[in-house]
């Protein structure tokens, strides 16, 4: 499959804990995730069981309640605490039990603790409030989830005056202000000028500094305060002491803490003479080992001790043993909640790795990593790999992280960095922030309660895997290039010989060839590599024209069943779905077959596919399917037989990471995890697809390396469209002569031939038009063809290691230059040019959209001048070989010599001669930087770094036009902070799109607003646009996002109807599976927004959400709130509606079947009232909501991924489905918003399909570009046609002429069809078959002659394929 859009990116780390089942004991703990790229934190999706009680966590506070049984009339002190993580619970419980057991005690302590996430549950919250009602002391710590912080605040505020003490440790300011210790309070937090409060104020933007400053304060202040006499200082001193006790965390410290607070502030105990000791302070950071007699502050001392260990075996003493650094949280160590740490240390040591476990008390671990893991003298790491078990980003905490700082630290370490998630009780996503991301509740987490030192079992499997993986990554650092074994995995999707080596925008075999040639030079053993890429293809697929059904790829290994079963621990689990091995797939009936070819230490293998592509039943129910034996055998071969040191997945994307994530046995993870085993996974991934890259990272522990999409070009004009352009040009010069009328009728007839009549209203030929109407008709046609002409398309396929030449980058730069970037003080080039003729560019866009001839012409001139100026600039900054020379130097040379800049020289030949020089200089300076990045070649270099076990720099993924920071490629892709979206800018753009959409729908639909819009949220789309489509949904229902103190968007508020000026439009939101994985908080936010709007007391005709929810509540017999369910997606762990798979394989019988598939897979709702329950099937609600839809809607966010480029868009299109569900049976309007250019458009789906067909499938520039890539290019052409059929199937919005034209281009043209057949017969056969299918399914009406030719061709190609094979 190719590029996907689907989902989201970012790695996140989540810590969540769900307790599964009644009481697990021990739970488990670790899910490992690898993330070398640090920016993205890590998050792992682990599949787990977890039932849901509907909350983020299923724990109950009652496990944290201790009630004294023997009060003996002693004064009672009741303490209520709220914490983020559970590690304090055992320590607090132990402390209180010890206090109550003391025969000399003066008080009886009752304590109950809550985890912040538990307060989501209304019952628990009520218990919490009830507990507070008779509490003496409240303690809170690390409360950073805004909505929950407000709940805590509300509850505690009521009792604050009555309580004896309120202690809040680092948390959001709202909660911090609750502090009260005698005369000490923090109520002025944020307002006071005192240095104490300034501390909070200054740092509120950065919690890592905040926490660290707080720690510093803890260390220094008490010494000073001790000697201050006043009561106030005494109270402040006790606060600081409290914090020290708390951070010291041990039961002893907590006992003394409670004694201190009780004796100082509980009236009944004053003067009772309770004695307490000072806090026992631990090191803030250092090195800890469970066997060591002490903590170390010096790594040399630690290593000395390590060398003297009596228990260590020879392997561990070997000076060549790999060394793994562990990063730990101090609080787990001091509170004794360290079972998972000990487990990892034991596992690593047992596997022969030395361990340096470092810890820190703050949230900034970058300092300690430098201090303890890097040799200060040589600057080299002591370690070969680092594993973080903190669950946090390296720098930062619950509120905000400092990624640049983390990256700098990791670059110094320059070793693989792995983040494992301790599943400690904990909250979740909300507080985890961004880059760290978060994640999924639902499915995904394992949980564990490491609370007990009982006899239980920890997630042993996770620990083993984490440790093995860490060691394997560390080995990359130690092994020589010559001995390293690399398994390159290519994809074949859909399963067809013609598709071997599929990857979005990538010429896979040429790229592999280029990579291997380079590795060979670098010293890797690539013995026997053929001389050309073509020969390489031949050898891997053996005979590319061979018959498709036979095992005709080159067989690299035959694995007998016994061997397979012995080496594949989970093999028996696959039998439920696939029977006993070997099965039918990747099998010769006796053995499992691994396809591929080995060259020295490099194996090139073909990844098997899901295996159920051709099976409609499976597509429908694949939710619980598993990989087949052949799939498992492939990875078993790679890991156990070939013994790869690393696997390189080549291009976007394969099926490994989309394997069902059902868990089988708690100890085993999901299938992607079992399959990839312990092999370091490196993944070449398209830079424009951060969302799915994140899935690859999370689910298959991949270190991604981004590659560039091919350079874009303008679509240009051809055939009739070109003639039209010429006609229009002559009309403009001759319109006032007598020939005007004649030219107009030629324009009209040519436009009709080009099928433009559906896009532009054209008068009858021969109809006499007044001059101004003639202008308008011509203007509209002109605008349309300009739109086609300037559309960007990636031409050809990218080859790794071959960056575009500078001149190839021109079209990309023109588009980069078309956007205003106010944050950088950059004005767009069209804007600058329009200003020289006294116009606002927005105004020109609007005029052109309306077809005002003068504006269309002006816009064309602006576009042309932009291209010319940029071309002139690029030519001046490139050398004779077409490479960019140093842009900055060259610029200053140009300026230094007093010559005018190249763009100025160029513009002086146009009407825009007076363009603002200063603005141009700023803009071109920026473009120069972009140009340098575009042509930079880091893709090979980064791969080599990864293979050497070095750190690969992380970077954002996305659209280079919107965000040039995506460049240069060769980075480990990450997405953005999920809580940062939607941004204010995104909200602004969203309003424009929504307003245009509603206007358009009103215009098409008798002036009525749509009552409901059904739309899709994509992960990639929202990453690239910082949440524009999310913002669109919010604006439709009339709410706006509200950011909290840390800038995180966790709340919405309604926009008044007056301000909105229209009814609130109801929505049905279909979230892609990847969006669900990456933006679970935003789903939560949306659902809350919808429910809030449904509950607004507003008239039904002004609030369609409420109107429909009321109707549905009645029909379903549920509450209004429950009826207001609008946010849907797949079941957890499942992706896509599978309509795409069915269409790609032509394995469906009728449209009804596709619609059933869609409904059965997409009707899982998210419920913000039970966020921990994950996705719940609510098919009835989904159908009822869809039945109200008047319009369907999707966004196109970037030029290189359009409607027919990928199968995802039609996969999620419900147009015909809605028609079937609507009571009136009317087809909804369907729209596509196009925000790929500065001038955002809302078009109907059929307009967009036509535009796409004209600029791609039918455009000689596009298909010839593809043909240049040979074998893979033919497949690309076939794919566009298949996706077009997909649109016919789901929406019916494809015009007949599209198929007709395609047929004449690729089939009627004899030379063309020969080329196709020879280059890739398998893909050509699929092309012919798809044409026949389009006709057979009634989507294309054509002549018998055409059909006969196709049938003939089909048998011809079939014969050719089979004939050669036999």
């Amino acid at each position, binding site marked *: 499959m190719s590029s996907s859009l689907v989902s989201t990116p970012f790695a996140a780390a989540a810590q969540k804990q769900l307790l599964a089942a009644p009481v697990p004991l021990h739970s488990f703990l670790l899910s490992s995730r690898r993330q070398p790229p640090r920016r993205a934190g890590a998050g792992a999706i682990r599949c787990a069981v977890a039932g849901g009680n509907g909350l983020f966590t299923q724990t109950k506070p009652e496990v944290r309640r201790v009630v004294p049984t023997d009060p003996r009339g002693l004064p009672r002190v009741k303490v209520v605490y709220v914490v983020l993580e559970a590690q304090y619970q055992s320590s607090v419980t132990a402390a209180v*039990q010890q206090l109550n057991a003391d025969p000399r005690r003066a008080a009886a302590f009752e304590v109950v603790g809550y985890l912040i996430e538990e307060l989501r549950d209304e019952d628990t919250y009520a218990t919490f409030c009830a507990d507070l009602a008779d509490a003496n002391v409240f303690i809170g710590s690390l409360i950073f989830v805004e909505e929950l912080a407000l709940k805590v605040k509300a509850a505690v505020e009521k009792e604050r005056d009555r309580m004896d003490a309120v202690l809040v440790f680092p948390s959001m300011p709202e909660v911090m202000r609750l502090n009260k210790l005698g005369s000490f309070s923090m109520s002025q937090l944020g307002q006071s000028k005192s240095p104490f409060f300034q501390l909070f104020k200054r740092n509120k933007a950065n919690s890592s500094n905040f926490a660290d400053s707080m720690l510093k304060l803890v260390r220094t202040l008490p010494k000073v305060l001790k000697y201050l006499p006043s009561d106030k200082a005494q109270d402040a001193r006790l606060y600081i002491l409290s914090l020290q006790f708390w951070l010291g965390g041990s039961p002893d410290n907590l006992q003394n803490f409670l004694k201190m607070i009780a004796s100082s502030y509980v009236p009944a105990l004053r003067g009772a003479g309770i004695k307490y000791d000072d806090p026992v302070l631990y090191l803030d950071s250092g090195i800890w080992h469970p066997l060591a007699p002490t903590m170390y502050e010096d790594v040399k001392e630690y290593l000395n001790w390590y060398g003297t260990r009596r228990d260590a075996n020879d392997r561990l003493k070997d000076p060549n043993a790999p060394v793994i650094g562990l990063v730990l949280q101090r609080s787990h160590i001091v509170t004794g909640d360290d079972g998972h740490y000990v487990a990892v240390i034991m596992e690593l040591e*047992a596997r022969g790795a030395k361990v340096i476990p470092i810890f820190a008390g703050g949230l900034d671990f970058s300092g300690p990593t430098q201090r303890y893991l890097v040799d200060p003298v040589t600057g080299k790491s002591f370690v070969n790999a680092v594993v973080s078990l903190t669950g946090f980003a390296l720098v930062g905490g619950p509120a905000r992280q400092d990624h640049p700082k983390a990256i700098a630290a990791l670059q110094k370490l320059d070793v693989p960095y792995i983040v494992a998630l301790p599943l400690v009780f904990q909250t979740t996503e909300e507080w985890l922030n961004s880059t760290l991301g978060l994640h999924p509740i639902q499915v995904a987490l394992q949980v564990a309660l490491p609370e007990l030192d009982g006899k239980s079992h920890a997630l042993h499997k996770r620990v083993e895997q984490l440790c093995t993986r860490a060691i394997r990554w560390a080995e990359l650092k130690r092994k020589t290039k010559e001995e390293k074994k690399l398994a390159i995995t290519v994809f074949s999707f859909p399963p067809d010989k013609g598709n071997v080596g599929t990857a979005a925008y990538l010429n896979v075999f040429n790229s592999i060839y280029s990579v291997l040639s380079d590795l060979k030079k670098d010293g890797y053993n690539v013995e026997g590599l053929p001389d050309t890429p073509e020969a390489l293809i031949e050898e891997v697929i053996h005979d590319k024209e061979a018959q498709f059904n036979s095992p005709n790829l080159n067989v690299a290994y035959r694995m007998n069943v016994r061997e397979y079963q012995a080496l594949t621990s989970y093999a028996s689990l696959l039998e439920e779905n696939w029977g006993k091995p070997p099965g039918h797939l990747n099998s010769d009936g006796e053995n499992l077959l691994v396809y591929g070819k080995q060259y020295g230490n490099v194996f090139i293998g073909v990844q098997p596919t899901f295996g159920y592509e051709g099976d409609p039943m499976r597509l429908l129910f694949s939710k619980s399917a598993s990989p087949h034996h052949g799939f498992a055998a492939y990875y078993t071969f790679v890991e156990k037989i070939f013994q790869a040191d690393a696997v390189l997945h080549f291009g976007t994307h394969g099926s490994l990471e989309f394997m069902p994530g059902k868990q089988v046995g708690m100890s085993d993870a999901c299938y992607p995890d079992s399959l990839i085993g312990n092999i370091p996974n490196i993944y070449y991934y398209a830079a424009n697809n951060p969302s799915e890259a994140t899935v690859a990272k999370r689910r298959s522990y991949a270190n991604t390396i981004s590659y560039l999409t091919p350079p874009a070009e303008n679509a240009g004009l051809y055939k009739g469209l070109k003639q039209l352009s010429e006609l229009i040009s002559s009309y403009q010069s001759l319109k006032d002569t007598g020939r005007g009328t004649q030219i107009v009728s030629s324009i009209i007839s040519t436009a009709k031939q080009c099928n433009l009549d559906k896009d532009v209203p054209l008068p009858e030929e021969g109809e006499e038009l007044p001059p101004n109407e003639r202008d308008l008709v011509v203007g509209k046609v002109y605008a349309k063809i300009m739109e086609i002409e300037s559309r960007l398309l990636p031409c050809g396929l990218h080859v790794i290691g071959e960056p575009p030449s500078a001149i190839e980058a021109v079209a990309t730069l023109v588009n980069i230059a078309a956007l205003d970037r106010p944050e950088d003080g950059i004005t767009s080039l069209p804007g600058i040019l329009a200003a020289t003729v006294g116009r606002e560019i927005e105004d020109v866009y609007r005029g052109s959209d309306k077809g005002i001839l003068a504006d269309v012409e002006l816009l064309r001139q602006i576009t042309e001048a932009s291209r010319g100026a940029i071309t002139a600039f690029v030519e001046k900054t490139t050398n004779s070989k077409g490479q960019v020379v140093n842009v900055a130097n060259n610029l200053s040379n140009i300026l230094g010599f007093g010559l005018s800049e190249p763009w100025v020289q160029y513009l002086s030949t146009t009407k825009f001669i007076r363009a603002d020089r200063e603005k141009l200089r700023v803009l071109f300076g920026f473009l120069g930087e972009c140009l340098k990045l575009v042509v930079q070649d880091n893709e090979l270099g980064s791969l080599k770094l990864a293979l050497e076990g070095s750190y690969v720099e992380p970077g954002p993924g996305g659209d280079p036009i919107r965000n040039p920071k995506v460049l240069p490629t060769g980075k480990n892709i990450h997405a953005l902070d999920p809580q940062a979206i939607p941004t204010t800018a995104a909200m602004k753009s969203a309003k424009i799109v929504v307003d245009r959409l509603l206007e358009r729908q009103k215009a098409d639909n008798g002036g009525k607003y749509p009552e409901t819009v059904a739309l899709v949220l994509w992960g990639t789309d929202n990453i690239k646009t910082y949440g524009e489509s999310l913002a669109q949904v919010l604006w439709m229902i009339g709410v706006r996002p509200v950011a909290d103190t840390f800038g995180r968007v966790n709340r919405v508020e309604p926009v008044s109807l007056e301000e909105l000026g229209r009814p609130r439009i109801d929505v049905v939101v279909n979230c892609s599976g990847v969006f669900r994985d990456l933006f679970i908080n935003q789903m939560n936010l949306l659902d809350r927004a919808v429910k809030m709007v449904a509950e607004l007391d507003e008239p039904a005709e002004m609030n369609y959400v409420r109107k429909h929810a009321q109707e549905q509540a009645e029909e379903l017999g549920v509450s209004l709130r429950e009826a207001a369910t609008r946010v849907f997606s797949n079941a957890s762990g499942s992706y896509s509606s599978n309509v795409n798979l069915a269409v790609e394989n032509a394995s469906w019988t009728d449209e009804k079947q596709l619609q059933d598939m869609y409904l059965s897979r997409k009707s899982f709702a998210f419920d913000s009232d039970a966020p921990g329950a994950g996705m719940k099937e609510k098919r009835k609600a989904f159908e009822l909501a869809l039945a109200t839809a008047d319009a369907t809607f999707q966004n196109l966010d970037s030029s290189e991924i359009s409607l027919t480029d990928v199968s995802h868009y039609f996969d999620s299109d419900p147009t015909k489905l809605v028609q079937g569900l609507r009571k009136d049976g009317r087809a909804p309007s369907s729209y596509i918003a196009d925000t790929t250019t500065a001038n955002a458009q809302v078009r109907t789906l059929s307009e967009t399909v036509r535009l796409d067909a004209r600029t791609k499938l039918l455009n000689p520039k596009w298909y010839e570009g593809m043909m240049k890539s040979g074998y893979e290019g033919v497949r690309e052409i076939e794919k566009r046609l298949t996706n077009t059929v997909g649109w016919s199937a789901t929406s019916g919005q494809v015009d007949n002429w599209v198929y007709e034209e395609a047929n004449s281009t690729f089939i009627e043209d004899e030379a063309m069809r020969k080329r196709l057949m020879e280059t890739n017969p398998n893909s050509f056969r699929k092309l012919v078959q798809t044409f026949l299918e389009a006709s057979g399914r009634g989507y294309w009406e054509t002549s018998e002659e055409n059909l006969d030719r196709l049938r003939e061709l089909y048998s011809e190609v079939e014969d050719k394929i089979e004939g050669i094979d036999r």
Partner: protein
Amino acid sequence: MANASLQSFLLPQHHSFASTGGSHDGSPSALLKPSTNTFRLHPNTSRSVTTTSTTNSSAPTPVAPAASAAAEKDSSPAPSLDLLGRQLTAGDYRQADETTRALIIDLAGESARRRGYVFFSEVQFISAEDLRAIDELWKEHSNGKFGYSVQRRLWEKSQRDFTRFFIRVGWMKKLDTEVEQYNYRAFPDEFMWEMKDDTPEGHLPLTNALRGTQLLGNILTHPAFQEENQEDEAAAAAESATTGQTKDDNKGRERPKFMRDFKPDYSF
């Protein structure tokens, strides 16, 4: 809810860097010598656990104070083979299990005692004789059903895969879910403390895997249990051959129709 009891455990406070208390007496690790180690698990501690955990099966029930744990520790009998033998003779597997764990800690050396748990690399310090003595007692009082050597055999049969082993000895239980899944049993209530017909072989004694499986792995690979190795492997091979067979037959019959009809159109 049942796990409320877990909370009442005293934390083993093993951080020697901390100045927290614990007088660690340096008593030698003889089996028969009483130890006053504060943090050791011993029968009384666990008894309090049992009590609390059984009380809270319904609604929010406060955990009983652990006072008893602290108070009773001095009077608790030190773990010894003798004590283990008596408990096993009495059929008190629950206490015998506690005693066994305490013995292992005792035998592993002073630093394990101080820490309250055994680090995997300390298992080598336990003599084969002591370990076998413990094992013999278990086997003797369970008709050969319990004991480390029994576990060792089952573990080998499971190809040393701990997940399979845990399922086999009943330390994990099948969950009642759509998909076949297992979860760890909750301690102590969900374990089987009586010897019945359906109590799985090798169910006792329990070894804590909260800190991973290396400790258990090292006990099971201790030279004390080495000899039985070979015959185990043969038995394992034989068994997997037979079970594999039966299983496959069943699978074949149960394959859904659409699977049987599924044509192998896609060979890769």
